[in-house]
């Protein structure tokens, strides 16, 4: 009986230690690192695989990074086919550890086939799903709610605090959404056309009533041919486009050429695929993009 009690006490102590251990989460995007830390607080320990400024479409995890995955309890991916290397991640995970695709609950926006020349890479061309779901705070809010539920399941003893943090972050995102909507009111309907270097703003355009304009020769590693540039200039003129938007850390070769050829305003570069520094939060990113769009396409504020 005594031995039974000793074993029982050891078991209890062991489970207490286990419960106190944070959940080890690996993330495949800095925005997911922020989200996991915001919702998980001290109950999670985050291993961030993709650094700010890195291209999530062409990220190639090093063997040393894949080895680190042996220590994690959960992997967070953006999903919607953004990470072409998920199979390699999966193959390196310990048994029972899952990849949770944070963007999965978000209804997909399909890239308009006419906008295929905007696509970031061949996988996202011709009617494929736009993977950049985080460009809509409403989508981010839905994803946050679902991730909160997932973390509640994995950390049942911290359910209440995770729910509280999830709801608080959802409020932040609702406020952000309202702020963006308010700011974009300064952009007249006829100017709600977003010309960017790659088709990363489908969700943003969908939510805020913008149109992504198909213009040949803006995206991709290749320079546009003179004929393609000529056609693009015509389209921009026809649509009375006021500004085009390069991307921070993106491939902007053609957009600069186009701007030089047309004299159209170049908007402040947008953040599309990634944040540009560790200090940039999701809210900062969305506010930066909104300010850039409003500054280039908005009407001047009447005093």
């Amino acid at each position, binding site marked *: 009986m005594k031995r039974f009690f000793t074993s029982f006490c050891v078991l209890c102590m062991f489970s207490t230690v286990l419960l106190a251990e944070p959940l080890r989460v690996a993330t495949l995007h800095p925005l997911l690192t922020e989200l996991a830390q915001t919702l998980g607080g001290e109950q999670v320990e985050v291993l961030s695989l993709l650094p700010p400024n890195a291209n999530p479409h062409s990220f190639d995890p090093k063997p040393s990074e894949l080895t680190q995955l042996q220590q994690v309890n959960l992997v967070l991916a953006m999903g919607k086919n953004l990470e072409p290397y998920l199979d390699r991640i999966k193959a390196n995970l310990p048994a029972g550890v899952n990849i949770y695709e944070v963007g999965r*609950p978000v*209804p997909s926006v399909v890239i308009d086939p006419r906008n295929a020349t905007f696509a970031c890479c061949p996988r996202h061309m011709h009617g494929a799903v736009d993977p950049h779901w985080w460009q809509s705070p*409403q989508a981010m809010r*839905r994803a946050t*709610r679902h991730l909160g539920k997932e973390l509640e399941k994995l950390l049942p003893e911290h359910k209440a605090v995770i729910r509280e943090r999830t709801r608080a972050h959802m409020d932040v995102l609702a406020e952000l959404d309202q702020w963006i909507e308010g700011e974009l009111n300064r952009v007249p309907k006829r100017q709600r056309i977003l010309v960017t270097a790659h088709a990363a703003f489908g969700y943003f355009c969908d939510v805020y009533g913008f149109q992504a304009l198909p213009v040949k020769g803006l995206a991709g590693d290749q320079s546009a041919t003179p004929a393609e540039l000529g056609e693009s200039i015509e389209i921009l003129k026809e649509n009375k486009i006021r500004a085009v938007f390069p991307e921070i850390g993106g491939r902007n070769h053609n957009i600069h050429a186009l701007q030089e050829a047309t004299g159209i305003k170049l908007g402040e570069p947008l953040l599309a695929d990634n944040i540009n520094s560790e200090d940039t939060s999701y809210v900062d990113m969305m506010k930066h993009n909104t300010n850039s769009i409003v500054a280039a396409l908005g009407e001047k504020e009447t005093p």
Partner: protein
Amino acid sequence: MRGRPVAELLVALTLIILGIIPVQFLTRTPSGLADAGEGAEDLARSEVWIELRSSHAPESWSIWHEGQQLWTGGGDTRADADLELHVHGGQIQLEVSGSWPDLEDSAYVEIRVEPDGLEDRRAGAWAKQEFRKNFQWSWE
């Protein structure tokens, strides 16, 4: 040939049954697929997240769906719930009721629905002390 009518009948019946089973098997609709549906049109029952927000905390509020009270709460400016709803022909109908007995002014009520796999929709209305309103959303 006419000597054993019972045996012939049994053979014929066996052949018919043996023939019917594979045909039935090939032509039936798999039950799981029938429920899942391909688009909003076929969606029968769906998990829907509902969020209620109000500028003033109501004493109580509730959500009704197809004549049934599915959820009730109160005392807060915000509440949410996961509910199982019927989505008929890509449409959701809900009735929201609330009461603010001490309210002198008006309260603004916003309801947001997020069905699994479908885009979210929201609607708002002004309320005065007692409120009961039907909301309907549709998806293409």
